[in-house]
């Protein structure tokens, strides 16, 4: 993992036009300002993890869910 020390007001610039600036550091945490191009998704880590877990649960539950069934399926047109 890359670790970079930054002060308030300093930036990290990434490829793809992404910039992350340290906006403030308080007792409650670090406030980051992000500049990202359209089409780039930025998620809080816990939100990302919740969705990834939901996707994984869906994929693994399909085989045992009677509402899904493992009968042959045709392409949905």
């Amino acid at each position, binding site marked *: 993992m890359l670790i970079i020390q930054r002060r308030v007001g300093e930036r990290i610039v990434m490829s793809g036009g992404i910039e992350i600036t340290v906006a403030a550091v308080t007792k409650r945490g670090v406030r980051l300002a992000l500049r990202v191009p359209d089409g780039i998704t930025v998620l809080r880590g816990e*939100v990302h993890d919740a969705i990834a877990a939901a996707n*994984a649960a*869906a*994929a693994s*539950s399909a085989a045992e869910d009677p*509402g899904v069934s493992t009968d042959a399926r045709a392409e*949905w047109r």
Partner: protein
Amino acid sequence: MEIAGTRFGTVHFDEQRTITLPGGLIGFSQERRFILLEPPPGGIVAALQSLTTPELAFPIVAGVAFGDDYPSPDARELGRRAQLLRTPEDKLAVFVVVAAQKPSGRIANLLAPIVINIDTRTGAQIVLDPDVYSAATPFEMRRTETSTAPRPRAETVTATHPET
């Protein structure tokens, strides 16, 4: 074309109807090519079958099943944000990933619907406001007993609205 080794057996499909999610699904970023498989007779749960990993399929339900006000913002706005719209006339479909939850319930990921441009066959899993929607919203599903041409319908699902 066909893909073997799926949980539905060997599935035949039209390559022209392949659906591409350039960003993959969240947590499954390498899964980018899919086909849609129809619900079983009388059912409403379709499947998004990976063409990269045959054993991987995601149960999905049409977003309309969760009410006329789902999703918010509406599909067109989501499509615009995700740059899915080629023309203003492009048709969009919204699907919600669902999972069985032991012992007998189901949960729906209303937080991150899959929006697909039906005309370009391109889509994305789009994240809505986590203060409004949950990734694990309980819902009940009633099977349609008389339908011979099952399609997801609003009246077949009672969706519990997301906790706020």
